[in-house]
């Protein structure tokens, strides 16, 4: 059945990519946020999720799907001729004005667009994942074009203009650009990644100042720390390491519910005060998705038990519990109010951020179950539950079996 379904195309997710490239779309646009200002973000998540699902399951139909989408994006990118490819309503105007230094920003608005860098990041991350997990080299070329375009847009901004721009949610732009630097070795992308470095959350964390995230929108800020963690791995810049570690400590110790989730109506409150923050709209699932990414990086840097204690808590209580086990629909909020009821997404008319990150969540459980160590600690197992085995070298899983038994 899945084979049949996978033989159909994802043209509805590509609708506005075609439209914005001046090409007749092959099918109609989906509903929900895909019909609104965040359109295109789902395709990015979908690329990431299918790429990881291919790696996790070995099912080649997912790679075929990735290859198809990348090919279509290449057509759109070529038609536009700027290096950019996207599906955001009115995006040419938003970014043209930004490049000229005309900036109206705040919260989730940048020049009238709904967090446009957030959506750009999702598409870029999807392309990077298509390259990393499916070896799609065209995806790397497309995303390099998008990165160069990003440099063209933000390169001429003054620091004042750039910092003004960063008051609108920008997702993990620093993270994906740092990864493009790691993949290509071209330092311009590393420099570009620091264009997405703010002075009101990141700089205070780097300087060891008091909690700068209290009262702020949670999921706007977690990706910043992920990017800093990656930059730290690639540069050893102490401030970036500080941002990543301190963000995690402040978030987990002062703002996180017992479930491992955070945020009430998406926002963080005063430190260490959650007793009166139990509503139907607690713990946005994207926050756990991003906190797990951050935790994985920190564990590689310093494999502390406390990191994986948190990971296990958030994975079971928040991420795993965000999926309806009967029909795979996703939660935006996990309600912690007494008597609260879960509100799941709809198949085709929701497409919130948490539907997008939810597609990925369940495709990459294998990522952090085991870690390789060294010396007397050659293997780390993250959870008590014995839920996976190491496949090891293809066709010769003996060594992995040995490890699994010891697990």
């Amino acid at each position: 059945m899945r084979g049949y379904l996978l033989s159909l195309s994802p043209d509805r997710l590509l609708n506005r990519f075609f439209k914005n490239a001046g090409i007749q779309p092959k099918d109609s646009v989906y509903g929900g946020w895909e019909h609104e200002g965040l359109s295109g973000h789902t395709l990015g998540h979908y690329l990431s999720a299918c790429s990881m699902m291919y790696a996790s399951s070995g099912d080649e139909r997912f790679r075929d799907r990735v290859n198809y989408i990348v090919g279509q994006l290449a057509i759109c990118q070529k038609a536009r001729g700027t290096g950019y490819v996207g599906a955001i309503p009115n995006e040419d105007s938003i970014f043209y004005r930004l490049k000229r230094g005309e900036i109206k920003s705040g919260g989730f608005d940048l020049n009238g667009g709904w967090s446009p860098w957030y959506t750009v990041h999702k598409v870029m991350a999807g392309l990077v994942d298509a390259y990393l997990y499916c070896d799609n080299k065209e995806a790397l070329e497309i995303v390099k074009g998008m990165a160069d375009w990003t440099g063209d847009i933000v390169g001429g901004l003054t620091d004042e203009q750039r910092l003004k721009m960063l008051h609108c949610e920008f997702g993990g732009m620093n993270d994906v650009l740092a990864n493009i630097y790691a993949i290509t070795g071209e330092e311009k992308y590393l420099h570009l990644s620091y264009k997405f470095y703010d002075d009101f959350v990141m700089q205070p964390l780097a300087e060891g100042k008091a909690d700068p995230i209290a009262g702020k929108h949670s999921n706007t800020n977690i990706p910043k720390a992920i990017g800093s963690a990656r930059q730290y791995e690639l540069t050893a810049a102490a401030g970036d390491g500080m941002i990543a570690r301190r963000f995690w400590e402040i978030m987990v110790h002062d703002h996180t519910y017992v479930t491992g989730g955070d945020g009430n109506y998406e926002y963080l409150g005063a430190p260490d005060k959650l007793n009166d923050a139990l509503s139907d709209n607690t713990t946005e699932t994207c926050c756990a998705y991003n906190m797990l990414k951050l935790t994985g990086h920190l564990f590689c840097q310093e494999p502390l038990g406390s990191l994986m204690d948190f990971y296990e808590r958030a994975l079971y209580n928040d991420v795993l519990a965000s999926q309806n086990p009967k029909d795979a629909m996703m939660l935006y909020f996990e309600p912690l109010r007494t008597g609260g009821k879960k509100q799941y997404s709809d198949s085709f008319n929701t497409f919130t951020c948490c539907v997008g990150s939810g597609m990925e969540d369940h495709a990459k459980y294998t990522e952090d179950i085991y870690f390789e160590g060294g010396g007397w600690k050659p293997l780390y197992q993250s959870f008590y539950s014995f839920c996976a085995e190491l496949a090891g070298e293809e066709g010769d899983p003996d060594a992995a079996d040995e490890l699994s038994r010891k697990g």
Partner: protein
Amino acid sequence: MTKYLFLFVAGSIGIQAGSFAQSYLPEKRDEAMKVKPVIPLKAYAFNLKDVRLLEGSPFKHAMDMDAGLFAVVESGQAAEQIL
């Protein structure tokens, strides 16, 4: 609450990464990354394809259900028709 387990396994382990599939977390044999981490790392992620979820685990169920969702997105069919 330190329920985290260290495993002490003697000898070398013959896990080999594939030729390309890498994660964005650092791996020991990061063939896809030209720039290697410059800080001393103490743990490395496994390649997604080197770990397989076991049948019967809730994670495997969630992954299979998710794979089904992709099919739904493609087809326009309601979830309950295929799951």
